């Protein structure tokens, strides 16, 4: 029973973190057909912003989230303009995905190492947005921070869902993802929409970074692990499928929780990669993805 509660709690927490980081990646892949390797760096930047706002300036967590949102939104937009926009002319090339994979990766390299120059390598402690914890069941302990994080993650996922489903620009993003030419015929200005989409997705990662920062600390390579985990989630969920990403996030959380409790934490990443290999072989399009097509 303790095991079961432990698994459940771990699943919800891990799943929510993964969801928040991965959903931005899915949004970008669905819309622009690029696997944005700079998303991990956005998590890292979110962490440093949180450190600056909460620790250095001593301001409130709400401001930390707002600043992280703004900073990573701008940075994501800039990343698109620098590393993707100049390549859009090659969009029909089958290697477009690969080229942008490499350019966004280059951006990640630059961001990580600039952060190293600016902030230095040491881990910085980010004050938890909320402190304290609650004992749920027989020693299964849950910090309020984790509850808040899961709550905010779910809030943002629902918010994104509403935005994409109900607003003019949200619908435009989906339209572009499903049929670029048709969307342009509707008058959707893709040259503006793309940077904004990438900014939006990056800001989700940035907000995740605020919360992760207080768990994992802020340091230059803090984005590597979230990036790898997000990659696993988006592949598992099917590239470009938002609902798939959310299911996959919790499924991966569950697999990880079970692995940690019954096999050992060293093995959770290799086992996840193993799962991914199997998924890619058996069902290449992932949990909910459509073969060869990216649709939000």
């Amino acid at each position, binding site marked *: 029973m303790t095991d079961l509660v432990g698994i459940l709690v771990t699943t919800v927490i891990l799943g929510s973190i993964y969801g928040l980081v991965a959903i931005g990646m899915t949004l970008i892949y669905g819309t622009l057909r690029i696997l944005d390797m700079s998303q991990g760096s956005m998590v890292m930047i979110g962490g440093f912003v949180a450190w600056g706002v909460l620790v250095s300036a001593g301001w409130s967590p709400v401001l930390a989230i707002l600043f992280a949102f703004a900073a990573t939104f701008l940075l994501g937009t800039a990343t698109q303009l620098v590393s993707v926009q100049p390549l859009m002319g090659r969009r029909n090339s089958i290697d477009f995905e690969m080229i942008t994979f490499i350019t966004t990766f280059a951006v990640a390299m630059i961001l990580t190492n600039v952060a190293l120059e600016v902030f230095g390598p040491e881990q910085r402690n980010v004050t938890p947005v909320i402190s304290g914890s609650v004992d749920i069941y027989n020693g299964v302990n849950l910090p309020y921070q984790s509850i808040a994080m899961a709550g905010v993650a779910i809030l943002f996922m629902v918010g994104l869902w509403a935005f994409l489903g109900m607003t003019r620009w949200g619908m435009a993003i989906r*339209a572009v993802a499903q049929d670029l*030419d048709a969307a342009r*015929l509707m008058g959707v200005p893709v040259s503006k929409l793309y940077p904004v989409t990438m900014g939006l997705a990056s800001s989700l990662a940035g907000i995740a970074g605020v919360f992760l920062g207080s768990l994992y600390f802020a340091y230059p390579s803090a984005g590597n692990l979230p990036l790898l985990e997000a990659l696993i989630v988006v592949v598992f969920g099917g590239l470009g499928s938002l609902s798939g990403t959310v299911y996959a996030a919790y499924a991966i959380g569950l697999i990880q929780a079970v692995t940690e409790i019954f096999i050992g934490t060293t093995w959770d990443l290799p086992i996840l990669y193993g799962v991914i290999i199997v998924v890619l072989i058996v069902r290449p399009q992932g949990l909910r993805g459509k073969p060869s097509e990216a649709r939000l």
Partner: protein
Amino acid sequence: MNEPLLEIRSLSAGYGSATVIQGLDLSVRAHESAVIIGPNGHGKTTLLRAIAGLVRASEGEVRFDGVPINGRSPERIAASGVVLVPQGDGLFPEMSVEDNLLMGAFVSSSWRRRRESLERVYSLFPQVKERARQQARTLSGGERRLAALGRALMRTSKILMIDEPSLGLAPIAIDAVYGAIAELKERETTLLLVEENFSHVRGVADSFHLLEMGTIVRTGSYDELVKDEEIASAYLGSAVES
């Protein structure tokens, strides 16, 4: 008033190094209903896509409403009142029919009036209204075509271009589609249609342009064109006999 709404002069366009349209001239007056016919693969679709900005012209000029528009992005051309219903409808497959229609009103001037436009389209195409909540990919071919037409009507257009309205549809669906087109013509919408033969368009067209090998080879009314034996035998479909 004497200047045509759409005027194309010695237009060349294609994909990469392959030129599909070469030195093409065409003009369409306001409230005119013009039809381009011609065999498959000779550049009809490319022409519409070039006008809409989806294909970049390598030479020549496209003037719309007196302004050169070639070189502009498709979204700017779309915002200036050029509406294209592309081949294969171009519906957003994972969106509901209603969301598809709403996307038709994306341009900000139309977005404000989206509710009225929606009502108008629904009254025009009751079948589309029945399917409003369904995902576009679940529709039948005829319903899809009507939805695409409906989506085109969500926006104030100065010219409505439709690429092969009858392509791949069952006869009964073709009738429905052309019924709708006839109604648009009634309302003095400027139309530019592309069809492979005369069979369905005879009743709705003011002028015909025959496109072969990437250029317009003949222009005239239906009667003028069918006088030519060669044209008649090549482009008169079975519908004429019946």
